[in-house]
Structure formats: structure tokens, C-alpha cells
């Protein structure tokens, strides 16, 4: 019994004698937490498979029916081939990031792990920041890799039907932007998960918003509708995966990403406030 081997003299130096562990230690702990549950592995595998699979499927279908498409559709694809290629994969695969982002924090609440986490980091906020940062880095790295893979696969399938190259204006930024978008989306979902504290509720909320509610606002009439749609988090954020501002876009790619970042920052701030305030 190791506890037994200690001499009877306790409390040498008092409770403040121990050093506060640095932020990198908290990040190491969060890395351990994220990599040691199966949902992480499955979500990330699904992200890769869905991205590449749907890119190949949609781009392949478009390329196969290229001759039968009307000139307007062809022109739309040719105007920004990167956006088309990345969009065809990410439209569905981004859901895995939404799910994982919510789960990373909400599953701590549903299993009770949050109590152990907060006993270890009773100031609470460093735990949230470490978790958010580690998760964002993971999604960013994998997101950029997947984005490049989708791009090359899409370009190969399209062949000579459209002309696009990484050297073209904005293309490289758009491909990297695919990863940036997913990383921010992950943080967005994590913030919602931290606020809702319930996996099912959080996942439903984020997916419902990103996949249903936000696209629907495009149907709102008039200039107000256009503005509402343009400034919604995911609709604005996805602009970063376009080579250049489209004719109907109110925001440039970086402006759009900035809007998404502001939304995410606001949600994270709300999550932080609630984490600090609420009983765990």
C-alpha cells in the first residue's frame, strides 16, 4: 500500500506549496481525454470518408452529365470550381464535426466526468479553453488534410472540363479555408454543447441550425432576407472555402470568416460565463 509508506509528517509546506500546473499540462490532459474515447475516432473517420466519398460522388455525377447540363449551371461551376468541389464533400461531412464538437463537452456532463474535471481544475475556465484549443487544432489539421484530398480528387475527376490550379488567385486560400471553416465550426458546436450540457439537445440544435435553419433563411424575401442569411454563422463562415467573392455574396471570404469567428467567440463567452456561474 503506497499510502502506507509515507511518513506520518503531513502537510509539509501547506496547500499553496504545490505549483499550479501550466496550461500545457491541461492541454495534455484534454488531448488524453479526446483521444481515449471511441466517438472521436469514429467521428473523424466518418469526416474523412464522407468528405472524400461525397466529393467523388457529386463531382463525378457533374462531370458525367457535363454535356447535358445547361450553360448556366456549367458557368456556375466553372466560375469557382474550388468552392464547388469542397462544397460537395463538406455539405454532409461537416455534420461529423458538429456532433463531435458537442460531444467533446456535453458527454462530460452526461457521464458525470465533468465533476472529476472540475475537481481537478476548479477555476473551470482553463479547462474549457484547453479543451477548445486542443479540439480546434485536431479539427484544423485533419480538416486541412481532408480539404486538400478532396480538392485533388475533385480536380482529377473534372479533368479538362474546368480549369483550376492551386496557383490561381484565392484557390490555395480556399482549400486551406476548408480546414479553417471546419475548425471554427467545431468550436461553434463545442460552445453550444457547453451551454446546453446535453448531447442530444446540443447535436440537434447545431445540426438543425447549420443544415436546416441557416439555408432556409436564403428564402426570406428582399434585402433583409439577404442580410440575415449572409450574416448567419455557418453561411458566412463557409465563404472562406471560396476562391473569390461571388456575385450574390454580400461579404468577402475573410469578412465572412470574421463574422463566423465573432459568432463563435460570443457563444464561447456565453459558455464560459455559464460554466463559471452554474453549479456543476
Amino acid at each position, binding site marked *: 500500500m*503506497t499510502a502506507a509508506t509515507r511518513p506520518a509528517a503531513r502537510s509539509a509546506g501547506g496547500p499553496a506549496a504545490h505549483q499550479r500546473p501550466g496550461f500545457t499540462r491541461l492541454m495534455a490532459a484534454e488531448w488524453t481525454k479526446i483521444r481515449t474515447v471511441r466517438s472521436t475516432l469514429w467521428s473523424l473517420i466518418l469526416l474523412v470518408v464522407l468528405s472524400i466519398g461525397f466529393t467523388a460522388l457529386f463531382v463525378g455525377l457533374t462531370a458525367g452529365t457535363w454535356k447535358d447540363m445547361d450553360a448556366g449551371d456549367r458557368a456556375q461551376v466553372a466560375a469557382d470550381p474550388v468552392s464547388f468541389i469542397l462544397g460537395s464533400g463538406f455539405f454532409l461531412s461537416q455534420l461529423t464535426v458538429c456532433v463531435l464538437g458537442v460531444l467533446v463537452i456535453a458527454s462530460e456532463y452526461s457521464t458525470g466526468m465533468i465533476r*472529476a474535471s472540475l475537481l481537478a*481544475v476548479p477555476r473551470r475556465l482553463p479547462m474549457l479553453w484547453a479543451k477548445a484549443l486542443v479540439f480546434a487544432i485536431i479539427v484544423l489539421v485533419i480538416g486541412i488534410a481532408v480539404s486538400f484530398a478532396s480538392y485533388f480528387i475533385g480536380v482529377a475527376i473534372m479533368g479538362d472540363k474546368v480549369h483550376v490550379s492551386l496557383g490561381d488567385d484565392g484557390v490555395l486560400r480556399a482549400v486551406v479555408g476548408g480546414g479553417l471553416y471546419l475548425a471554427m465550426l467545431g468550436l461553434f458546436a463545442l460552445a453550444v454543447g457547453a451551454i446546453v450540457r446535453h448531447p442530444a439537445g446540443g447535436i440537434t440544435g447545431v445540426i438543425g441550425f447549420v443544415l436546416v435553419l441557416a439555408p432556409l433563411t436564403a428564402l426570406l424575401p428582399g434585402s433583409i432576407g439577404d442580410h440575415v442569411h449572409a450574416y448567419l454563422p455557418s453561411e458566412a463562415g463557409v465563404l472562406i472555402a471560396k476562391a473569390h467573392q461571388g456575385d450574390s455574396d454580400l461579404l468577402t471570404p475573410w469578412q465572412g470568416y470574421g463574422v463566423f469567428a465573432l459568432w463563435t467567440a460570443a457563444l464561447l463567452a456565453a459558455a464560459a460565463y455559464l460554466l463559471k456561474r452554474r453549479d456543476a
Partner: protein
Amino acid sequence: MIEAENLTKRYGDKTAVDDLTFTVQPGRVTGFLGPNGAGKSTTMRLLLGLDRPNRGDARIAGVHYTDLPAPLRVVGALLEARAVHTGRSAYNHLLALAQTQGIGRKRVDEVIELVGLTGVARRRAGGFSLGMGQRLGIAAALLGDPDVLILDEPVNGLDPEGIVWIRTLMQHLAREGRTVFVSSHLMNEMAVTAEHLIVIGRGRLIADCSTEEFIERSTEKMVIVRSPEADRLTGVLTAEGAKVAPSPDGLLTVTHMEAPRVGELAAAEGVVLHELTPKRGSLEAAFMELTRESVEYGAGDAPALPGAPPGAAVPVAAPPAGPAAEGENR
């Protein structure tokens, strides 16, 4: 040392902890006793900074828990509700906690060994039995080799062997000079584990004293007497101020008088005695009586002992108290 000062916590209009003030000293096991719903878990969560008190203050080793730089190295806690991700293995759970405090992997292996989970450390904690989960929680509490241990119902779900193990462990940790604060709703368990008791009911302090004193104070002494001249003896004893209750099998239960005095009076009057046995009332019954007013979820008005008729005076009226054996022989 743990200090609670006027600790008060309300959930809505329900007061879970009501103006609690107590101190837990190092070097002994302090039992935190109360019926279910008395506010034990809430009090512990307040001590650990998980819940915020509406009023009052809780300090461990002189500071608020939230101000401890490396809390797991000072305080080890086992919460009543499980605090483990079901999808993560015991080893990885402990590793993640260790990393937050800069505790090495060697210590993780040590505590796994200490609580006897070595064989299952790589298995997902979701598949653990209640007892294994409890051992994992204790491993997490011991991870930082803390001076203060706060354990909420640690014997929950443990088999008899496990109960003896955790009892021995707690007493051992206390002898090393640590502060050990352990909650339970089982009086008899606390009687053999704790040296000191803090008893609460409905969130309020009922008693804060040594276990011995608590037993002394709350269980009535009685003397069991068997005599062929029961009626005459009853008269003699009653005349001297004792209370005597006959029972159908010819035994007399004498209260308000010590055994030697009963013997002396019988000898003086020439009454033959066949049996003269000093007894104590059941500790469990005494505890129930003490906290009767404050039971949150009672089965009825009279928390009668199993088998005792409703309305029977609980602590001593069932001589010779069968379930008392455990308490009285300590």
C-alpha cells in the same frame, strides 16, 4: 482540516443545507451521518466548489477549494454520483486527471494497484460493476496523495470484503495524519469506522461529538433481569425510581437504573435473580429516533423498526434489542 461556516444552500425554495458550521480535524476518521436527503452530498459539493453556497463559507486547509493551485494534491474526493466517462478506460481516466496536476504515470499505476483494479485498468469504465466503479473513484481520490479526503458514501456497492478494505484504508490514512471526512447514512457502519461524528438532518447540524459520546448520549442504558419473583422485584425497583417493563417471556427490562444497583436491591430484599444483564439500545434505532424529525423521505409518521408495531417507542422498547448487538459490543 476542513471548515464549514454558516454554510447554506437553497435549490429553489428548498433548503438543502441550512446554516451548517463544523470543523473536521486531521488525524482521525470523521463520519458525516444523516438520513437520505439530509444534505450530506450537497455539503460535500459545497466544500469542493462544485456548488456555490447561498451563504457561508467552506475552507479546506485554510483556503477555498477553488483557490488551491493543485487541488488533487491537497484534497482527494469521491463523489456519490459517478464522475467517470463511461467510454474511457480506468487507466486513461486516471491519466487525464493526473496530467492536470503534473502527476506522473507511475503514480497512476500505483493507485490502480492500490485499489486492486490492475486486471481491468484497460477496460472501459462503463462496463464496471458498482464496486469496481467505487474503487476507481477511490483511486482518483488517492491520485495526488492528498492530506484531506472527502468521501461520499464510499462503501456503496462494495461487497463485505470491499467494505472492510475501505474501512481499514480510511483508518490507516487518518493515522498517517490525514483528514478523513466520510459520509454515510448507516449508523452501524460509522460506529465501527469513525472516531468522530457530525450528524445532520434536513440540512441542519444535529450532533458534533465523538462517536463514543454520541452512542453514550443517544442510546439508553437498560438492564435485562430474569426472576421467579418478577412482581415483587418490580415493586422493589420501581420504589427506588427505576422503570420496569415486563415482557411475555418473563423478562424484565429495567431502565433508569444501573445493573449493580438492581443486584444490590434484589439481594437486600432477598429476591432470587436468574439473570442480570446490562444492555444498550440499538444504535441504529437511536439514530433513527434522533433524526426522525428530520427525515426527508420517511415511510410514514413513525419510522418503526422492521417488525416493531407502529407507535412503539423506538429506541429501547424492544428488549432485548436484537439488532443492537453490532452497536453495543464495540
